[in-house]
């Protein structure tokens, strides 16, 4: 298992200034500390739709890399997204899933069938060709640059544990100022 904040720092080392990043819920609060940036897309509603927003962004701006930092509970609510992304096949979409086995933002309850399902297996079965899974931080740090350096779509499942308690101010994700900052930054980028 890897500490999520360290995984995010490893990803951030390869994120360019003009990349769009969509972090989800608990990951988002960690990510905001790692990479505060107006091209963080934080307002994607609920029920696992971040990767769908990402698909729209990737189709609309094929000149930019779009990186989703999803949660396992979130992805379970929208598994069809793996199929839709595989068919649309945007070369600029990178889908990372933080698998901690819980609905962390809603009390830490376990996801159904925790430990017996495979998110990388889901992705492969959905038709993704570029699929990875990591549980060792050193190996992930070595390979994440290559994943982001190759054409997408790419999918990577990261087996993580949280670093510790978080202060969750949801206005940092859903406030209108957040969306306007993103809109302005994207228009200029």
């Amino acid at each position: 298992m890897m500490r999520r904040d360290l995984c995010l720092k490893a990803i951030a080392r390869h994120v360019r200034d003009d990349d769009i990043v969509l972090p989800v819920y608990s990951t988002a609060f960690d990510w905001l500390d790692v990479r505060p940036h107006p091209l963080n897309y934080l307002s994607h509603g609920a029920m696992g739709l971040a990767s769908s927003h990402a698909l729209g962004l990737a189709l609309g701006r094929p000149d930019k890399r779009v990186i989703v930092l999803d949660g396992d509970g979130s992805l379970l609510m929208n598994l069809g997204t793996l199929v839709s992304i595989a068919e649309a096949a945007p070369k600029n979409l990178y889908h990372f899933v933080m698998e901690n086995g819980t609905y962390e933002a809603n009390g830490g309850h376990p996801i159904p069938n925790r430990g017996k399902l495979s998110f990388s297996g889901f992705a492969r079965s959905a038709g993704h060709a570029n699929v990875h899974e990591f549980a060792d931080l050193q190996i992930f740090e070595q390979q994440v640059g290559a994943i982001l350096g190759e054409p997408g779509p790419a999918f990577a499942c990261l087996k993580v544990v949280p670093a510790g308690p978080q202060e969750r101010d949801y206005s940092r994700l859903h406030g209108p100022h957040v969306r306007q900052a993103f809109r302005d930054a994207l228009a200029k980028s």
Partner: protein
Amino acid sequence: MASSAGAAEGRTVAGLSGESIIREIKASGIEFVVSVPDITTSEGLLRPLAAAQNPRLVRICKEDEGVGICAGLAYTGKRGLLLIQQTGLLDSINAIRGVAMDYSLPICMMVGLLEKEVGVPPRQSKRYGVRIVEPVLEAMGVPYVEIEEQADVGKIRPAIDDAYATNHPIVLLIGQRPS
């Protein structure tokens, strides 16, 4: 264009031309049609759209995905249209609430009304699943336009333009099968 006889209690209305609806979709600047198949619009709209290069068809598994995709497109300045059935619209209520309404985004939805009787206003349908659509949209504050006969096709472009001009969702309710 053939006329369609309405149900016993419905008025007789002119048919809908799918070709003219697609023309209006294109004229509205729609570059992406995002769809889960719907039997009302299957032959008249989805099949010809699938055969064309523009707008690009994005096939999805579930309708709420499409709300997210159209939101992402809207931020990039590209226009998307979600082509679905009212069953999928009802299934996507939370996505529409959270993304289209709470975030004030121009999510444009063209919705086939499964089993609606031709010539019968949706809220007078014998089908519960049809009757509730407009009241549900009104309760959510989501504007809608009925596209029931050919004369209604001209409402499509202004409705989409207004959604983008004022950042609100719009639902275009397709009341009979386009030819």
